[in-house]
């Protein structure tokens, strides 16, 4: 079952670019296939390489509705799927003192007392929908079982209401930072896309696009320095989001080219650990930081 958002790989790349997302060939190809094959897309990669942004960009170009399940430790069925509105149910029980319990029960397990959470919302959605299950690896293992069920047939059973099946499949994106290995079963349900750090040329285009007013030569130098840092053995190497932050900082400082002084003073924008800063400064031949 295709979602029918895109007509070709080029169509994906062109339309995403028009909203400010520059897709690598791997990204464009895989997004197209997720659309064509109607399978959920699992996007893995380090923080700050544009995984979340990709789902948002797809939403924007297709005019779809974005439904987002932000995962965290302790997220559970009642946060991900649905929940009964207990407080309201209690009020209803207290208000209807004269009724039989059977009547009350039928009533309090009806639509009106149901609180749909992202997964149910996306399944029930009548309009084209992008379902973003963000940072899946942060959720506990049990939630994976839940996702597996929902993503297998795109249907959800609420015992009191019956089975709800998607009339149109949401375009589903799961992201993961791989802090925990997701189960093999969940991976099998999905198309797999790894987004790493972009190639030099692509990153230059991203920076130029995201930081208007940045000189081309400076953009090129920025990306080269970031590339050098990524080749070093550091605790945390800079990601695309740090490249963008650094370029903005340089622009704000009015630096029109890199020199030792400006790199030394702004290295903290790229690197978050003091020992990384010390090590990188030594490798880059910067004088004492």
């Amino acid at each position, binding site marked *: 079952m295709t979602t029918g958002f895109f007509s070709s*790989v*080029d169509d994906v*790349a062109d339309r995403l670019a028009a909203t400010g997302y520059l*897709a*690598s*060939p*791997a990204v*464009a*190809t*895989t997004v*197209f*296939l997720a659309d*064509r*094959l109607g*399978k959920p897309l699992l996007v*893995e*990669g380090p923080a700050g390489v544009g995984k979340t942004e990709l789902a948002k960009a797809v939403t924007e170009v297709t005019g779809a509705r974005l439904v987002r399940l932000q995962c965290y*430790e*302790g997220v559970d069925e009642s946060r991900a799927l649905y929940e009964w509105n*207990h*407080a309201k149910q*209690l009020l209803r029980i*207290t208000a209807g003192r004269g009724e039989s319990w059977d009547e009350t029960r039928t009533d309090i397990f009806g639509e009106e007392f149901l609180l749909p959470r992202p997964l149910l919302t996306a399944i029930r959605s009548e309009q084209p929908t992008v379902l973003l299950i963000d940072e899946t690896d*942060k959720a*506990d293992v049990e939630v994976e079982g839940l996702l597996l069920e929902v993503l297998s047939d795109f249907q959800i059973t609420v015992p009191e209401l019956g089975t709800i099946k998607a009339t149109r499949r949401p375009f589903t994106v799961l992201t993961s*930072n*791989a*802090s*925990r*290995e997701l189960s*093999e079963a969940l*991976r*099998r349900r999905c*198309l*797999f*896309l*790894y987004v*790493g750090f972009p190639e030099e040329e692509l990153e230059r285009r991203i920076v130029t696009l995201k930081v208007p007013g940045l000189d081309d*030569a400076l953009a090129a*130098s920025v990306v*080269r*320095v970031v*590339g*050098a840092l990524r*080749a070093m*053995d*550091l*605790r*945390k190497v800079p990601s695309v989001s740090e490249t963008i932050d650094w370029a903005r900082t340089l622009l704000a400082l009015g630096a029109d*080219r*890199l*020199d*030792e002084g400006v*790199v030394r003073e702004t290295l903290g924008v790229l690197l978050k650990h003091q020992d990384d800063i010390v090590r990188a400064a030594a490798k*880059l*031949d910067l004088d004492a930081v």
Partner: protein
Amino acid sequence: MSRTVDGVDAATAPTTAATRLTGLVGALRAHGFGIGTGETVDAGHALAAVGFTDRERVREALAATLLHGEAQRPVFDRVFDLYFPLGHTRAAEAHGNTPAGPADLAALRDRLAEALSTGDGAALDRLAAEAVGGFGGYGSGPESDGWSSYQTLSRLRPETLLVRVRERLRAAPGTEESEFTDRLLDDEIRRRVEAFRERVRTEARRRVAERQGRDRVARRAVAGTADTVDFLLAGRAQLDELRRTVRPLARKLATRLAARRRRASRGEIDLRRTLRRSLSTGGVPVRPVLRRRPPRRPELVLLCDVSGSVAGFAQFTMLLVQALHDQFSRVRVFAFVNRVDEVTGLIARGSADPAGLGDRILAEAELTGWHGQSDYGTALGEFADRYAEALGPRTVVFVLGDARTNGSDPNLAALKRIADRARRVHWLNPEQPSLWGTGDSVAPAYAGLVEMRPCRNARQLGALIGRLLPV
């Protein structure tokens, strides 16, 4: 994005695509990839959807449908290059198949310097094909001849082009000598040269596959992923590659440990606070309140056999534990051959030069008495006597070694004393369980006292550490 890079070899187009796909899937399965029928069918649909005009799209389509993780990618890429080779390499073969002379070598090096400086991928692929064709062939009989990337690279010596490439790049318009980024240039060139070497290896494998059959080469000549290489069989280059995975692995494990720690502290239900909160829902306890246990970081002791064949395993684990040190209130590392010495300080300083760690341990620590063979009994005894203060109710001990004690007394009492004082003792043995107890291995005797687990490669180590480390 370039729209039509190079298409797949014309002969590969739809008719034979199904056969190639089956071959590729078979080779990947032989490398241990779990690929089901459903995924193979998806891969077929994916190929139909993206077409064959752009080879990189074919590659990505197959990767998206057949892979489950990034660790599989290097093996996948090499296997893919065999089943879906570049279309244009055939053309290059026409003029590159005869052994070439010194003049050809000089000309090829010139063109290579140019292509490296412009970073022209298509030209680099062509040059790799020519280089293997001209300088990589050996033997003459149909049984004994072949193509060697090693021979190609040792004649071509691309690394010696550094100065020439640097000069070309500096002479390019718009570059000033005083630029800050000038200091990055040499390393950038080295990375390009390394990428070219990989192209040469790919090309040599492709030619060998043409001669010997794809299926065979895809299974034998493509090395497995570094994290599945057996610690006891890993060569120097593989250990170097492994060492580079220490930090990423440590980062992953740190996140995992943090998650386990938080989960452990989520603890039981706090009845009093749950009831108090339930007042807002008419006395019905809708949301339980959980009691939080205060965090307390454990202490870790590593006791490693660093002799001969198990040294690679010990060093990798030491570096990994060092990279994780801020997860613990204290980490102490001890090394032994037949005597024990503490090497905690050496390892803490060793992160600057991980490759030299093994040599420094052997040079600076007192690990051997009058002979150089491991003696577990003596070493455990000495540890229990001299370093008893390192053990306590919050200490978890990892012993690393193959338990091959060269015929000497295993000294079970010493291990028992260690186990009694510590909170927990885990023994990681780099040998497969079927070898435990054979020859001079006393593994079963030690395994009767503490939990012993096989740990044969980095992937297993990562999984074990993530599970066994105390939080």
